């Protein structure tokens, strides 16, 4: 696909003014303003970037890491391209909505986009992602954790570039585990941590709110129990998708969900608890255990730096592998993160892939991990001394990524996920014997377009 060097970026296109409009009589102020804007634009176009192609990277909100990486890659390109970032909404579902609506309208301003892995099949199936060149695919999958490659693949083909790979670990207070006599060197089960929290009068934090995070939790539970939400993806006909909710593993996952939600350790706001509020629970006096992403640690360090938290709190933090559902079955922790897609309507897909390779370089992943707390997908980053210093628990995160199970890979992920959220919320109201069957009925009817969602 050809690309046009010097393609104007969105700002430049937006400020184009027709000469006739400037000559309108009786509008000297408007004309002066137009000239100022044009002059400003010309100044902006000049300078360092010269004839560089402008690439727009739609990013999810973070602590400024992606904007810094964009600046670094712009500089490294030596004037061949500049990367401008455009901010997407806060939650993953809204990010998907905005990108899909733009891409459905053939928006060519999207060169690069930060994509939540479960939505990648939908984008790929709809033809919204530019094909990954073979040589690029080979380079960006070398030395990368398996779950991140799997999350970037659809229909046996790499369709996105693995960037950073998130996973949930079991955060806990060392003092609480010690008081409860729990050996955290050994794998622990959900029953064990709930019992330990109840004994010590502390909280077990998980994500019980009706949101994507509930699907993340349920998926981890059912995968840990040896099952899967989808057993046959049937990409051609959504009505033929086979679900594994009404199975022994589904039932076991529901039992654990109910047990946690009904326990005293769940806290009063469990059914509205998300990643942030459950991290707040761990930070509180009653903090005990919390299944959550690695951001929990830099968040606590940041609070100490800001003077809102005592330094003894993060010093008491430790991380272990996600809890098991059954003692003798290894846990399958959640997999998340962000992978990079190149817009199918981008006018510079080759440059965009070049920029994507720069963005996911080991140095940038290490920088992003250390500064923003977002773990790398490249395994070598975990040996970086700077990473190990900032994240003493990096080896646990890496091990967790190797064990992690992605959420269902299907272009109809939204229907599946929202169907699960509707059926399994509130978590204390689930019925291990019936919820799986009801959820299957609902999702099947929705996929067959016979029900509302």
């Amino acid at each position, binding site marked *: 696909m050809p690309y046009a060097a010097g393609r104007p970026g969105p700002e430049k296109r937006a400020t184009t003014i027709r000469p006739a409009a400037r000559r309108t009589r009786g509008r000297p102020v408007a004309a002066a303003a137009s000239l100022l804007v044009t002059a400003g634009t010309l100044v902006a176009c000049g300078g360092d970037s010269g004839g560089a192609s402008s690439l727009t990277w739609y990013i999810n909100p973070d602590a400024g890491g992606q904007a810094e990486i964009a600046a670094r890659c712009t500089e490294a390109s030596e004037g061949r391209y500049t990367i401008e970032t455009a901010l997407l909404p806060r939650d993953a579902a809204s990010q998907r909505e905005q990108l899909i609506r733009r891409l*459905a309208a053939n928006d060519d301003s999207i060169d690069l986009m930060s994509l939540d892995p479960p939505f990648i099949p939908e984008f790929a199936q709809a033809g919204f992602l530019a094909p990954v060149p073979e040589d690029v695919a080979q380079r960006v999958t070398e030395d990368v954790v398996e779950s991140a490659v799997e999350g970037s693949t659809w229909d046996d083909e790499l369709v996105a570039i693995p960037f950073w790979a998130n996973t949930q670990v079991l955060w806990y207070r060392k003092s609480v585990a010690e008081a409860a006599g729990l050996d955290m060197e050994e794998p622990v089960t959900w029953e064990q941590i709930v019992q330990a929290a109840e004994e010590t009068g502390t909280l077990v934090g998980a994500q019980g709110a*009706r949101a994507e995070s509930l699907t993340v939790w349920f998926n981890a539970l059912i995968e840990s129990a040896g099952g899967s939400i989808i057993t046959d993806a049937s990409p051609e006909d959504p009505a033929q998708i086979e679900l594994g909710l009404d199975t022994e593993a589904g039932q076991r996952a529901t039992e654990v969900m109910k047990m946690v939600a009904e326990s005293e350790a769940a806290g009063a706001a469990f*059914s509205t608890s998300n990643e942030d509020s459950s991290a707040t629970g761990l930070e509180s006096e009653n903090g005990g255990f919390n299944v959550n992403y690695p951001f929990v640690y830099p968040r606590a360090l940041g609070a100490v730096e800001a003077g809102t938290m005592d330094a003894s709190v993060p010093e008491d933090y430790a991380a272990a592998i996600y809890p098991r559902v059954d003692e003798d079955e290894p846990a399958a922790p959640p997999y998340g993160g962000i992978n990079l897609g190149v817009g199918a309507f981008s006018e510079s897909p080759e440059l965009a892939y070049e920029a994507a390779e720069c963005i996911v370089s080991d140095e940038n992943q290490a920088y992003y991990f250390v500064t923003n707390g977002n773990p790398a997908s490249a395994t070598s980053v975990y040996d970086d001394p700077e990473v190990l210093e900032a994240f003493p628990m990096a080896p646990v995160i890496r091990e967790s990524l190797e064990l992690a199970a992605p959420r269902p890979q299907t272009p109809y992920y*939204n229907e599946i996920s929202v169907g699960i959220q509707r059926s399994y919320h509130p978590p204390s109201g689930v019925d291990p014997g019936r919820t799986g069957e009801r959820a299957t009925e609902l999702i099947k009817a929705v996929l067959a*377009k016979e*029900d*509302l*969602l």
Partner: protein
Amino acid sequence: MTTTTLPPGKKTEPVSAPDKGITDRARSERKLGWLLAGPAFAVMLLVTAYPILQATYESLFDYRLTDPENRSFVGLTNYWVILTDSLWWESIGVTAFITLVTVAVELVLGFGLALVMVKALRALRPVLRAAILIPYAVITVVSAFAWQFAFDINSGFVNSWFTWLPGVAADTDWFGDRWTAILVICLAEIWKTTPFISLLLLAGLAQVPEVLQEAAKVDGATRWQRMWRVTIPNMKAAIMVALLFRTLDAFRVFDTIFIMTNGANGTESVSFLAYRQTIARLEIGLGSAVSVLLFLCVVAIAFSFIKLFKVDLAQARGE
């Protein structure tokens, strides 16, 4: 005892009188009226009629945004799917409940505020009006966030300040239960839109002829009797218009629910259902059908107000 209103017949002849016997002046006024209102009317048609027609057309198709090639005509199937789904009726119930509660409370509060604004000292009036109008100037999403933070179990102040109220405890999870969540949604809506209803009622209050109040006073009517027998009957048109506008607005409630609960715990409104099918699920056909049904509900509300309650929009303008 009867109510006291001014006798009819003082009104000017409406411009929309029958052609028969119309004067030249009235005709030219009518023409001017069309010339002045015509462009706005055309723009309204463009921005409202076009999307309505487009949505009606799309609602007859099975059409997913990411799969435009497999779009197919399905007739009224989408409507059948919606009307036979319990979720639709549940959403209608939630929407109707929120509408009834918020509009009723807003009417009473709005009337009180309008009275305060009328009776306030002249020097205080501008400050008072500005203060009362502030919530209406706040963007709904911002107001929803503010109320959500106030009632949040971790960061909210309600759970620590109001534990003396029955049913409020330090660990009350307002958004974790259907009815407490709906209560907070209603409170936010009432706070936000009461100023609107009070403004409309203020205009109605200003239209009540002072001469009637004085006559009632001379006849020995108490303050309460003057309110029920003179003030309220004379501003019936303004009240009905305020009710109509707010009911139509309340029935389309979306932002507050989206921010506070995202539809969890049975708090989904009809607008939210339309959003979920169209924007989240990308089923343009099914979502358009929900939107068309929502539009029909709104038309039915407007029609019943105008026909059953005999709301005369012209009278509310003081014609």
